[in-house]
């Protein structure tokens, strides 16, 4: 008995530290470090640190930094850059902790918009607006809609550094041919296809509801098609009453109809995208369509190469009859960005490196990896892509888009996006009604 008691005591205090104290520990740690860190900027000694989201695609950034470190520009700026790859899902939290400490990176990967707003508000970002307008390489190097999406309130804080990630409606060409269907261009056509597929016993849409953000994509497109891009623009710029726009309610009602109609099948909220569940449902023909970011193509190519080569089709999200949005409008992540820490020890070296992202060598490396860069010169390079047809579709889609709406969860502040995603999930699983959905979102500050 004696030993059990002491064991219980140990478990208690250990859990205490891990559970209740973890937040504080992290918090106290960074607070303390900030206090002593006011002297001396980050990096120093000519070496700059860059944080990047550490997935396979980071190889392009590794190569770019090697290239930069041995370049004339680096010698001129007397700076070297050291890359730190931060494992995927931990990236935002790790960046936040680092930015509050003296070990902050000089240059860091981000999603633009709301993902950097807190850093801008804390005066931690270099305003790149003048740098971009005064530098022809940067100014004309990138697609304007993409550069704009990386900024906040008319100011630029980011340089595009990865492929474009528009959300695309993928479909199974074999299934469509078998049931004599054509990809939908209007909402009525989509409903018609929906009914025919269900009759044939096929789930119309794959949906990784367990991750919630795939659900959000439906709302993003519906609000755009019904009310136009300006509806979310208002919300993004801090006007919470924008959630009260009739287009949001209509979009929520449309989502409910789809769910009630069985468009996503029954178990969608147990299916995840991230563990490969939803892509597998789609590739194996159990679902005929999949609304997903452009990375779905490389996911399928990696996991189900036969399906990706033979039966994977793609099209734009259909227009809604009578809606204010343009069918050419795009939602998704325009790309990822490099931002520069205002406390960097060597701003010139950082900016010299950022210029490399507009170069043809950098763009070629992205294309070889299956990405479509957001650079204006990309079009001439698309033939070198592993799938030129898909790359061209993606590129023209973004180039011709009147508006590119950044994914909502990246566009708004993290303290708004977390409850927002919860409300989206409630709407999809039927824990909330469209009108309650709207009023809950209006309540978010």
């Amino acid at each position, binding site marked *: *008995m004696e030993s059990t008691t002491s064991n*219980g005591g140990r478990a208690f205090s250990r859990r205490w530290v891990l559970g209740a*104290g973890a*937040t504080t520990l992290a*918090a106290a740690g960074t607070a303390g470090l900030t206090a002593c860190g006011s002297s001396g900027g980050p990096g120093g000694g000519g070496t700059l640190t860059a944080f990047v989201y550490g997935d396979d695609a980071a190889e392009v950034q590794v190569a770019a930094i090697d290239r930069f470190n041995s370049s004339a520009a680096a010698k001129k700026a007397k700076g070297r850059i050291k890359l730190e790859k931060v494992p995927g899902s931990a990236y935002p939290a790790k960046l936040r902790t680092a930015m509050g400490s003296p070990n902050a990176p000089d240059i860091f990967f981000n999603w633009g918009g709301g993902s950097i707003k807190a850093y801008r508000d804390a005066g931690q970002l270099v305003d790149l607006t003048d740098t971009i307008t005064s530098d022809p390489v940067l100014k004309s190097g990138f697609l304007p809609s993409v550069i704009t999406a990386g900024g906040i309130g008319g100011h630029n804080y980011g340089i595009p550094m990865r492929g474009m990630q528009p959300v695309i409606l993928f479909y199974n060409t074999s299934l469509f041919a078998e049931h004599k269907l054509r990809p939908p261009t209007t909402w009525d056509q989509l409903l018609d296809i929906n009914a025919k597929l269900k009759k044939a016993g096929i789930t119309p849409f794959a949906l990784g509801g*367990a991750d919630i953000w795939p659900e959000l994509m439906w709302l993003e497109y519906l609000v755009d098609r019904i009310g136009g891009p300006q509806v979310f623009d208002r919300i993004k710029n801090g006007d919470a009453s924008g959630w009260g726009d009739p287009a949001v309610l209509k979009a929520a009602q449309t989502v409910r109809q789809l769910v009630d109609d069985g468009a996503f099948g029954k178990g969608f909220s147990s299916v*995840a995208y991230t563990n490969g*569940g939803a892509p597998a449902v789609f590739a194996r023909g159990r679902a005929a369509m999949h609304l997903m970011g452009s990375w779905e193509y490389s996911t399928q190519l990696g996991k189900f190469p036969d399906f990706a080569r033979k039966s994977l089709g793609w099209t734009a999200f259909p227009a809604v009859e009578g809606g204010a949005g343009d069918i050419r409008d795009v939602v998704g992540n325009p790309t990822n960005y490099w931002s520069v820490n205002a406390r960097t020890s060597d701003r010139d070296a950082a900016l010299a490196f950022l210029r490399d992202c507009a170069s043809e060598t950098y763009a070629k490396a992205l294309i070889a990896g299956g990405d479509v860069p957001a650079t204006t010169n990309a079009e001439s390079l698309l033939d070198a892509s592993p799938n030129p047809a898909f790359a061209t579709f993606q590129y023209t889609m973004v180039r011709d888009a009147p508006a590119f709406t950044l994914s909502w969860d990246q566009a708004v502040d*993290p303290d708004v996006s977390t409850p927002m995603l919860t409300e989206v999930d409630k709407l999809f699983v039927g824990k909330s009604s469209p009108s309650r959905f709207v009023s809950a979102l209006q309540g978010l500050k």
Partner: protein
Amino acid sequence: MPGVLFFLFFAALPMVLAFCLSFTEWNGLGDPRPAGLANWRKLFDDGQLTQSLTVTVLLTAVSWAFQTVVSLLLGVWAAGRRRNRAILSAIFFVPFLLSSTAISLLFHALLDPNFGIVRGDTLGSTDGAFLAIVFVGGWQFIPFHTLIYQGGARQIPDVLHQAAAIDGAGRYRRFFSITLPQLRNTATTSGVLMVVGSLTYFETVLILTQGGPGTDTAILPYLMYEAGFKSYDFGYASAVASFLVVAATALSLLLVRLSGFGAMRGTREGM
């Protein structure tokens, strides 16, 4: 003495700091700004706390019942002296050695409605998600508690059983009249561990349900994590953390009082 210092530095100090932070507004950058009672007001105003507390209590109660019943029966069975049972219990102990994260990932895959072994929308329905968490927690911790019960059952002197057998008591009668009462203190020990463990249950919820569907399985520790590391609202997260500390302490004290855990020395008194 080093133990006390360690405790003060790594447990007591963070707790005090968390409590101070709960009166500030801080997003992790720059200095915390005083916010008065705003975080606490938010905590008690929005329905989330009530709901989280309900889920936490319910989860604790159901987990306790499930784990106690199963591990009591298994423990008593495994206390038999046959060798194969010892080997079996050794194998049975394995789940406890796996990390909760690995177990949760495994079950997340098993519960996939299209390719898992359990078809249907388990994690997408309120009851399904709740029971999945209870089951996965049980799967991991029942072996440990079985071990405790096994030890407890082995301590019961054979003479009691022999005497009862002579008096004509059958297997079931002996289980209810001898084994169960003799395991009272074991049950208390294991029960307290279960309750305290359930209060800080976290990884399983994070990986299996992320508090969903909606907020139906958002227990207090998850709420704290979400506020701190997803919303970067460290003030509010600290308020949740402080509340959790108070609630857990109160509950442990209550359990000790009610169960007579403190007065456990005289195990064999009634013998």
